[in-house]
């Protein structure tokens, strides 16, 4: 039976797969003659009609099928596609709900209904369905689905204003009750445990969370799951359990061979918390009558920054003796600050000795500790000892043959005082004099010396300094450059990058373009010998753009093969103010094409990420779900996405004639974009930077001020106003843009400010025509008939979304409402 059925349908599926939609429709029609009510065939036909661009017929058939309230799995699956295509996603959930109501004993249908809610982010409905599933089918999985959905609801995950909602406590308490009443304990897997702890932590039930962590099975989960251990640390710190954290980290380092840098940092951070706690406790005991304002010497200065990433959350390090119940001193920890610090010193020295040069952890931890000690002593007005410089020298001597030595030391060099810098620079000078480029180790050391010298330099640098340095680096580059095969990276490449840094600096000082030309010669030469080095190319892209040579910039950018999600983080390299260089008017669509390529990822995100969220539910990986939802949101509301959108609009204006029907839709899209909360995902760290402290090569080579949310807002408003005027409709955007405060304009170039002024004058000068309602405007623009006909006018090749494919293919939940009155179809 089933086989026969499959054989019958196969030609339809084949035709659909191969894109022969007409053939698919014909086959459907033929089969429907014999079996007019065959649901699957009808559903397939509506899909085929849709693909063949026969929207009206497709919608009619789709509505008929929905009205019959299908329950068959296959039919539901096909209809899900159809509705998604028609941008009617909310109806998908209704369809599944209806089917499940008809067959409440069908577990699979129930699960599908749950998933359909997850797909559109209706956490509340998802929570209720999951609970119902649990009651009917008793699987603990459904209970945890419900719990997770409640947590997402409390977090308002993926919503317009993510963050805890007002009713979060109620939801979380409900979630907690569900966990406690569950037939399985949360210890069954790291992900269940993670979810449980997240709820407790968010509810501030830290003692309870702590107890679970300290249980036998809790401890084991912390040992075998990095996500759980991360959360454990956050809970310890939030609870003020710095003594326990310090003891635990100390044990892991000294006895268990743990060399995770996070453990080192956390040991140092928590030890300083212990010191603070001890001091404030003894202070409370000794002079309990002292006025509360007397905080001299007790607290660290505000600059005492923590470096454990997790400690920035919650009230991590703030240990308030009034609020914290007085913990008893830990038997394994001394009370005296000096003894605590000495203990760490000894530990790190011992580890460094034991590990030798194979492992940098212990060595670097000594530096980190000295930095913290220094901040503490500075806060107490004590004079700073010389230890940091000698530790720096020691570290350099040990690891200068590793490329990362410079990066390791940067932050410690930055905290040196003037007098120490002199001694440090003297040391570097000696090293530089002994430079030897003939061995790989010698080369790596020399590069580290140069980078550190540049970074540590104290004096105001002049054109001559930069010229001399660039020449030194370049000479070294040619000396060091061996003849390697083309697929390898050249170890000497960093010297060329250093030279380019120096030359850019010389340009910054003098604004003589010839330095930029020289930098390009260096980069091109190095790039020809080291084809795979992306850093050389990134620098070249930036400098070419400064010189208005977009062609070579684009070709270097393309050679880097930026793709997939990288287009969101890296397309700014070529598309920032990209319309400036668009040659579309003379027929070169390279830049327009780049906008389209860069925007494709957002379609991928809206079609695929939700599937992965569902998958995480199916495999019960609760630790991942919030992250996935946030990821989807960050990409969907990416700042770069909409900067590209605007660039695209501006490029299009110079070539395409405005399609009146598309105007209103485009207006609506821009208005929608204006309402978004954007995330800045652009990667600027990937631009190599070997400039002196406090300078950034990325800033220096930016084409105009780096654009951000303010730029986007001003420009969006400018275009929205123009579009609205062209469509003769009202818009909420201010009509007087002279009112932007100067702060709002800080991301604009002088030319852009002039453009804004120009637009304002134009706006005032052109008389305002009588305004229309949006429906009337649509009718007027299409030059024809009634508002409902206007649906047939999707933003064709135009549109402001460079990646928009066809009319229905918009993203889920976030897509702007269609501008027409709701399709009334059969009703």
């Amino acid at each position, binding site marked *: 039976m089933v086989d026969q059925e499959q054989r019958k349908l196969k030609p339809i599926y084949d035709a659909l797969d191969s894109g022969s939609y007409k053939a698919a429709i014909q086959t459907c029609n033929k089969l429907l003659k014999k079996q007019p009510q065959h649901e699957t065939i009808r559903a397939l036909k509506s899909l085929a009609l849709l693909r063949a661009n026969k929207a009206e017929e497709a919608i009619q058939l789709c509505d008929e099928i929905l009205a019959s309230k299908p329950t068959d799995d296959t039919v539901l699956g096909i209809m899900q596609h159809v509705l998604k295509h028609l941008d009617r996603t909310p109806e998908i959930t209704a369809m599944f709900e209806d089917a499940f109501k008809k067959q409440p004993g069908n577990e699979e249908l129930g699960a599908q209904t749950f998933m359909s809610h997850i797909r559109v982010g209706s956490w509340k409905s998802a929570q209720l369905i999951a609970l119902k599933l649990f009651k009917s089918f008793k699987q603990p999985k459904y209970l945890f689905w419900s719990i997770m959905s409640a947590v997402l609801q409390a977090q308002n995950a993926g919503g317009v204003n993510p963050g805890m909602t007002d009713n979060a406590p109620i939801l979380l308490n409900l979630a907690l009750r569900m966990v406690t009443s569950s037939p399985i304990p949360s210890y069954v897997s790291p992900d269940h445990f993670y979810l449980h702890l997240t709820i407790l932590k968010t509810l501030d039930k830290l003692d309870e969370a702590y107890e679970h962590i300290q249980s036998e099975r809790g401890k084991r989960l912390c040992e075998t799951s990095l996500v759980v251990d991360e959360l454990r640390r956050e809970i310890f710190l939030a609870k003020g359990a710095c003594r326990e954290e310090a003891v635990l980290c100390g044990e892991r380092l000294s006895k268990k061979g743990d060399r995770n840098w996070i453990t080192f940092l956390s040991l140092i951070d928590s030890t300083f918390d212990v010191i603070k706690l001890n001091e404030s406790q003894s202070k409370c005991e000794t002079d309990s009558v002292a006025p509360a304002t007397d905080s001299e010497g007790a607290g660290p200065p505000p600059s005492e920054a923590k470096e454990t990433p997790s400690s920035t959350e919650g009230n991590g390090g703030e240990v308030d003796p009034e609020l914290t119940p007085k913990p008893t001193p830990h038997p394994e920890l001394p009370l005296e600050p000096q003894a605590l610090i000495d203990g760490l010193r000894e530990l790190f020295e011992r580890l460094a000795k034991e590990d030798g040069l194979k492992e940098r952890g212990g060595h670097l931890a000594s530096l980190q500790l000295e930095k913290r000690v220094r901040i503490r002593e500075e806060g107490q007005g004590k004079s700073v000892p010389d230890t940091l410089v000698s530790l720096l020298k020691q570290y350099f001597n040990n690891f200068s043959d590793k490329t990362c030595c410079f990066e390791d030391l940067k932050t410690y060099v930055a905290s040196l005082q003037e007098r120490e810098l002199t001694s440090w620079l003297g040391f570097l000078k000696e090293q530089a004099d002994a430079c030897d480029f003939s061995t790989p180790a010698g080369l790596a050391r020399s590069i580290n010396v140069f980078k550190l010298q540049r970074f540590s330099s104290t004096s105001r640098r002049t054109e001559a300094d930069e010229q001399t340095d660039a020449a030194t680096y370049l000479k070294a580059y040619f000396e060091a450059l061996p003849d390697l095969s*083309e697929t390898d990276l050249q170890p000497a490449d960093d010297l060329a990058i250093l030279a380019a840094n120096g030359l850019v600096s010389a340009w910054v000082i003098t604004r003589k373009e010839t330095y930029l030309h020289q930098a390009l010669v260096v980069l091109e030469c190095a790039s020809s010998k080291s084809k795979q080095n992306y850093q050389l190319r990134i620098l070249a892209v930036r400098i070419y753009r400064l010189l208005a040579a977009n062609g070579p910039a684009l070709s270097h950018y393309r050679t880097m093969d930026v793709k997939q999600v990288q287009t969101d983080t890296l397309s700014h390299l070529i598309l920032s103010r990209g319309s400036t260089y668009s040659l579309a008017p003379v027929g070169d669509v390279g830049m327009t094409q780049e906008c389209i390529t860069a925007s494709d990822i957002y379609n991928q995100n809206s079609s695929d990420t939700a599937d992965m969220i569902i998958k995480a539910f199916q495999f019960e990986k609760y630790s991942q779900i919030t992250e996935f939802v946030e990821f989807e949101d960050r990409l969907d509301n990416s700042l770069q996405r909409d900067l590209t959108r605007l660039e695209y609009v501006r490029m299009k204006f110079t070539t395409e004639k405005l399609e009146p029907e598309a105007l209103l839709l485009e207006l609506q899209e821009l208005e929608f974009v204006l309402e978004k909360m954007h995330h800045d995902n652009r990667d600027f760290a990937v631009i190599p930077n070997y400039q002196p402290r406090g300078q950034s090569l990325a800033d220096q080579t930016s084409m105009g001020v780096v654009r951000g949310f303010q730029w986007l807002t001003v420009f969006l408003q400018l275009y929205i106003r123009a579009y609205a005027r062209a469509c003769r409709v009202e818009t909420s955007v201010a009509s007087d843009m002279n009112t932007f405060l100067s702060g709002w304009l800080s991301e604009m170039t002088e030319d852009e400010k002039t453009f804004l002024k120009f637009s304002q004058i134009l706006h005032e000068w052109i008389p305002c025509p009588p305004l229309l309602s949006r429906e009337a405007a649509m009718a007027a623009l299409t030059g024809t008939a009634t508002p409902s006909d206007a649906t047939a006018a999707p933003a064709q090749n135009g549109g402001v979304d460079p990646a928009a494919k066809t009319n229905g293919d918009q993203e889920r939940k976030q897509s702007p409402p269609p501008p027409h009155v709701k399709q009334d179809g059969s009703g």
Partner: protein
Amino acid sequence: MSVLRPFKADDLFKFNNVNLDLWTETYSISFYLNYLARWPDLCLVQEAPNGKMMGYVIGKAEGHGQEWHGHVTAITVAPEYRRLGLARKMMDELERISTEVYNGYFVDLYVRCANVLAINMYEGMGYSVYRRVAQYYSKLPHEKGGRDQEDAFDMRKPLPRDTMRRSVRPNGREIIISRDQAP
């Protein structure tokens, strides 16, 4: 010396310095999220103290019966952080999780027969060639091609559960299977 931490979805925004390297492929969003949705504990990141990504490993657990094992799908370290023992640390952790959490018999991975550097590295870590998979990879654009470019070695390392050491075969290099026979 590095921070070893779980790979997270938003690391896709941070991995450029690793992935722009020629030898590291960038896949679709679903590729990464699919791994995270199923084996998050086998996906790890090494991060520098300043927050820069140094490298990552992506793995999974699969197989039936005595074939139940951990698998390394991708391991990569950014050029500037190579030879610091990072790959070794990530492999150690993946092996530990494959043992303690998944209770697998072995850990395995596929590597181009021509990638001698990587093969030596894995041998140094206790892996050995279990079999050769013919035409597993497509040709690299900048290489000439040829059998060693396109064939893969399936390399395995026994975990404590493999008491009989079934995942070690002295003549592994001579045992050739076709691509379809490989999982």
